[in-house]
């Protein structure tokens, strides 16, 4: 089928605004790759360059081994689903889906069978004669997906297709698109700013920030082995807690926060990586789920904190507290007896603490487990 290869892709707008810098990644055949990052990170621009809607300043894009830099969108054999659906308002659902095929002069019967098939997959059979304005948001997005499916393209591109839907529908459509990916066995590139969508849908995820690709990896690798502080903070919900401090030599290497409110001895594995950092500032990262109300290990760091806010979710609770004026979140079992203003004992396993270089933000130590 089709793979997509981006080689040193750079995009500079007319005003000299550099939105994508030297992007390199490969989407394998039948793979679902998600481009994710905060808004303005260049992910949509990257997708639009693959689509052919945006000119490439420098670099090369290959689809199925063929250089497509100078090919117009229609010759790239790709289909795109837009964030705002972009349905043709004057056409019925059927005509919307058939439009591309009609332009290609596909046989009428073939068009009909393909549209009907897509409508069946997407549950749109009873709506084929309706105009887009008579459909709900979810149905409209389904039509937009259907318009892509009927073309049987080599590659599907999705540009934040779910961001206009309400939360419940978004979860539902998320699984539907994942299912569709398996059903069609197609190569898909999906852009989103929502890390949950990225984590749940992607075979692999490309994380971008300020036009630069930070990491390309599987969802679990991104979660477990983020290459830098940005990735660590972006992946995971609630986000990772960060605290800056210094490494010092006191009975072995020790991390000490700026006001010494928080300190712990580095584990033997961590020490190996941080020998050169004595006297230097670093940032530690602790995932909310790695802060516990139970002491599971002798080496755990114990905290005694005043509670700021409790957010009970039912199956779990989020606890907000401060260390040196930095807000921390812990994700713990639901604790009904907790009260705001009271104190709570929390435990952190030092093995699960991430360490980042303060200057570069790079991760200093990987939890390979």
């Amino acid at each position, binding site marked *: 089928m089709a793979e997509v290869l981006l080689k040193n892709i750079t995009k500079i707008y007319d005003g000299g605004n550099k939105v994508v810098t030297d992007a390199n990644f490969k989407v394998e055949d039948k793979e679902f790759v998600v481009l994710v990052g905060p808004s303005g990170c260049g992910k949509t621009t990257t997708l639009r360059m693959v*689509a052919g*809607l945006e000119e490439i300043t420098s670099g090369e894009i290959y689809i199925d081994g063929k250089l497509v830099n100078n090919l*117009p*969108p*229609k010759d790239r054999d*790709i*289909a*795109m689903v*837009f*964030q*705002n*659906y*972009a*349905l*043709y*308002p*004057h056409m019925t659902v059927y005509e919307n889906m058939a*439009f*591309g095929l009609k*332009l*290609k002069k596909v046989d009428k019967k073939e068009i009909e069978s393909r549209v009907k098939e897509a409508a069946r997959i997407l549950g749109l059979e009873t709506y084929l004669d309706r*105009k*887009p*304005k*008579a*459909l709900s*948001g979810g149905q*409209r997005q389904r039509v937009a997906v259907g*318009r892509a499916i009927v*073309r049987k393209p080599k590659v599907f591109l999705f540009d934040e297709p779910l961001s*206009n839907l309400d939360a419940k529908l978004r979860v539902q459509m998320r699984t539907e698109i994942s299912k569709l990916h398996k059903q069609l066995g197609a190569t898909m590139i999906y852009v989103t700013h929502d890390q949950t969508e990225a984590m749940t849908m992607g075979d692999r995820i490309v994380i971008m920030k300020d036009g630069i690709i930070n990491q390309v990896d599987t969802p679990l690798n991104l979660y477990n082995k983020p290459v830098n502080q940005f990735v660590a903070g972006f992946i995971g919900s609630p986000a990772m807690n960060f605290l800056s401090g210094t490494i010092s030599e006191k009975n072995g290497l020790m991390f000490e926060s700026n006001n010494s409110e928080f300190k712990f001895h580095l584990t033997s594995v961590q020490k190996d990586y941080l020998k050169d950092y004595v006297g230097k500032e670093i940032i530690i990262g602790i995932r909310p789920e790695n802060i516990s109300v139970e002491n599971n290990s002798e080496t755990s760091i114990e905290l005694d904190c005043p509670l700021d806010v409790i957010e009970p979710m039912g199956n779990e609770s989020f606890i907000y507290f401060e260390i040196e004026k930095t807000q921390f979140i812990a994700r713990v079992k639901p604790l009904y007896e907790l009260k705001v203003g009271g104190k709570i004992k929390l435990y952190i396993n030092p093995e699960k603490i991430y360490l980042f270089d303060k200057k570069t933000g790079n991760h200093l130590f990987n939890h390979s487990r």
Partner: protein
Amino acid sequence: MIKRILLYGFLIITSILTLIPFIWMLGASFMFDGKASVFPPIFLPDPFTLTQYQILFERLSVWRNFFNSLLLSTIVTLIYITFTSMAGFAFAKYRFAGKRVLFNVLLSSMIIPSQVTMLPLFLMLKSMGFINTYMAIIIPGLANIFGIFLIRQYCISIPDSLIEAARMDGATDFQIYRKVILPLAIPILVTLAIFSFLGTWNDFLWPLIALTDDSMYTLPVALANLMLEHTKDPELMMAGSVVTIIPVIIVFLALQKYYIKGIMMGSVKE
């Protein structure tokens, strides 16, 4: 409630005031000579007669003038809509060198009154050999900035993603224009078509200047000639006016339902 009554009262009164001359025109056209020029005016013809129409069709080659008017108005409107919609679409959705400057120059030309351009226009068309031909009416009406501006503003409101979706679907630029832009722009196209049709149909001064032969005259010009000969014959004049006005009213009534149609609904979510 009172507000409503006042509003409806106001609307009814203005409607009546607007309609009175039309009704009088219609009534007078069915009267014998001299019956209409009385005060207070009478609206119902008594006795009823078709004499004025008979005279009208005898004295003037009404059918010929009617055909001229209809042909010219239709051709001008069709070409005008085609050109202005293409230009408006291009100004709204394409990037090309000098776009802004060109548009501003065109826009500023709107302040030049049309009467000022008549003489140079006449000389130009004369040198082209188009005076006293249909081309003399058609060529100046091909396009104008007013129409381009209106279409451009409308096209700007059509989301780019719609055009991009069509492009991804394999549409060429012309197909995008014809299959996406034109159907979506119907309300504004109809508005412009009405303007253009009425404008050409009712235009008097330019056809009077550019057309010199009886057989080329449009209805208003022919009617004006009639007026010069029959200044004291309001009944005949009114019959001529009725013949002139009816087609325009039909065109307007036929097209007005497209005016307010919210055709963009449901396409995209912003």
